[in-house]
């Protein structure tokens, strides 16, 4: 095995195979498991019914995020404010009870470490290079930005990991997305991943694990890498990853749950071996020139519906494939858009800056840089910023970013998934349009009838200021 050159994905995979069944299904060890309130109650219930325990409780970390309102959580006396919606309250209470009952570490809603699972894992140093990381959430691929093999699982698999610390899996095929050159000014990691999804399609990565390679990713910060890997699932890939390097190690050093001292040195020595070997073969390869990437925006209801901000709403007839023509027509009806309209003429009423894709400190800084000294346009009815965690929020407040946002007419919220998914109280009203830094523009994703345009944090800020989709490069 050691003689054949291997990709990064294959190295991590091989290091975690406990055994392989005759039919090729592998029993794969899981190093880190993140749990939130929405996809776990049925798993805990199943364990309870079968009288099963959690095999390695110390390898699981639980934190509420999806269902939690982003309004203040403590009253003036410092007491928790009850959650109004009884179903949400019951689901959150279930996690709060299940975690200690099964011996799992739990970060409560009122702790400063609370946040979106995919922000918390890296921030705490719980997510580490070369590990297998799972969570009952498809954006788990996010943690691949640290060089981990991270992927989303269903609730039956959550139960499987809790009970056995393993999963039964078929190996995926390795795919490479290589981007050489350098991104232009005003072009962010989000613009790049939207461009990539537009290029390979919403199913282009199905059956593959994507390794992002090339100068552009090497030059990125860890937070930018997390943004890129986060959206791998929108291209159909269950996981996406970037080889860990000195940037990764500098990010992780000293984080509360990361190894320390001699163990840290040993870990780094191991992590340095986690690179795709010279001569390793990818089953599929896509090469993109960074110079072709512009600030990107979606026009439809699939993340593959991407155009550069200078582009126009497409004509359904322009698509070669019949099913895509039908889908485009349906999407445009839902989005209320006329073919041929310049994207910069599309007015928006809502702006959402947040989600596991773009709610880290660098994202907030990028948006604040555009908003500084400006105000949202009058037609923008609702603009909110939702930091990815309490620690991100505190850092932003220390830097005075919260004031820039509130002075620009934004609401400054408590951490959580918020308007990313139309589950908690933060929703976009029916028929209204939202410039959103989240990851999905699906029908009804931000609320029934809501129309989502996916953009980067700086582009969301530009949209807030102009009241329409706008090219941020014209504002800086």
């Amino acid at each position, binding site marked *: 095995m050691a003689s054949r050159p291997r990709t990064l994905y294959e190295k991590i995979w091989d290091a975690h195979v*406990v*055994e392989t*069944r005759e*039919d*090729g299904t592998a*029993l794969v*060890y899981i*190093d*880190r498991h993140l749990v939130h309130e*929405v*996809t776990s109650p*049925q798993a805990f*219930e199943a364990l309870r019914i*079968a009288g099963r325990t959690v*095999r390695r409780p*110390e*390898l699981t970390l639980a934190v509420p995020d999806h269902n939690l309102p982003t309004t203040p959580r403590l009253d003036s006396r410092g007491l928790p404010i009850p959650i109004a*919606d009884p*179903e949400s309250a*019951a*689901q959150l209470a279930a996690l709060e009870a299940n975690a200690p009952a099964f011996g799992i*570490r739990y970060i409560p809603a009122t702790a400063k470490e609370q946040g979106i699972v995919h922000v918390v894992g890296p921030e705490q140093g*719980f997510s580490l290079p070369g*590990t297998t990381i799972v969570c009952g*959430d*498809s954006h788990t691929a996010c943690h691949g930005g640290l060089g981990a093999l991270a992927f*989303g*699982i*269903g*609730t*039956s*698999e959550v139960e499987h990991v809790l009970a*056995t*610390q393993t999963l*039964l899996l*078929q190996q*995926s095929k390795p795919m490479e997305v290589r981007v050489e050159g350098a991104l232009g000014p005003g072009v962010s990691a989000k613009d790049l991943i939207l461009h990539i999804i537009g290029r390979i399609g*919403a*199913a282009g990565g*199905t*059956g593959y694990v994507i390794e992002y390679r090339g100068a552009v990713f090497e030059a990125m910060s860890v937070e930018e890498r997390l943004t890129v890997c986060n959206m791998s699932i929108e291209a*159909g890939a*269950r996981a996406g990853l970037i080889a860990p390097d000195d940037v990764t190690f500098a990010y992780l050093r000293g984080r*509360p*749950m990361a*190894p*320390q001292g001699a*163990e840290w040195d*040993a*870990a780094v020595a191991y992590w340095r071996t986690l690179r795709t070997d010279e001569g390793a073969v990818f089953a599929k390869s896509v090469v993109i020139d960074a110079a072709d990437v512009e600030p990107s925006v979606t026009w439809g209801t699939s993340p593959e519906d991407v155009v550069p901000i200078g582009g126009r709403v497409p004509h359904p007839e322009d698509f070669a494939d019949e*099913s*895509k023509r039908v*889908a485009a027509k349906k999407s445009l009806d839902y989005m209320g858009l006329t073919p041929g309209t310049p994207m910069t003429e599309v007015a928006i009423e809502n702006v959402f800056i947040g989600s596991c894709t773009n709610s880290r400190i660098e994202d907030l800084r990028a948006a604040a840089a555009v908003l500084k000294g400006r105000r949202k346009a009058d037609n923008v009815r609702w603009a909110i910023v939702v930091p990815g965690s309490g620690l991100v929020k505190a850092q932003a407040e220390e830097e005075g970013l919260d004031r820039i946002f509130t002075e620009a007419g934004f609401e400054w919220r408590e951490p959580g998934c918020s308007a990313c998914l*139309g*589950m908690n109280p933060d929703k976009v009203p029916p028929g209204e349009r939202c410039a959103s830094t989240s990851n*999905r523009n*699906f*029908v*009804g*994703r931000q609320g029934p009838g809501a129309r989502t345009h996916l953009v980067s944090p700086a582009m969301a800020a530009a949209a807030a200021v102009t009241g329409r989709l706008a090219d941020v490069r014209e504002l800086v």
Partner: protein
Amino acid sequence: MQPLTRAQGRAIPLGLKNVDTDIIIPARWLKTISREGLGQGAFETIRAEPGNVFDDPAYAGAPILIAGDNFGCGSSREHAAWALADLGIRVVIAPSFSDIFSGNAVKNGILPVVLPQDAVDRLLDAAREGLEISVDLEAQTVTTPYQDRFAFTLDPFRRHCLLNGLDEVGLTMARGEAIAAFEAQRTAARPWLMRGTAA
């Protein structure tokens, strides 16, 4: 899990591509802590359209659903599989499925059948004519009264679990010794991996 060897009956001709799990079951239905009753919220946005296939009496109780490319993409929510099961769907036929959805489907006794687009188109026509379609997991075939016979494959392990209604957790727990040996090796080589904390 309910075993599945064969399903026969009418099929709902949905046909759409990129049917994401937010369409199958919108987030507002995810506040439940149970697996039951999600059929109520299934395909809510599509059902809001007059004349939709789900409310067409011709397909009432149909055990088969036919869709386009990339069925079940998006969110990993297993609620999508629970909602389909609650509607009485035992088989979904499409040219491709998202990886996470097909895994979730099998764990809930639902068979994802991958067939080429032309075969799917043919089955959509048959379904719209109200013909019964037969799906046989043992033979791995889909047949119609028109004598169509399309062969499909499912990975052997998933097929074995579906045919026998096996619980994967139980199967893996029986491998406890192999897992313990693997853990012992890891604890010796890289103890920090097995702790989940700094020290």
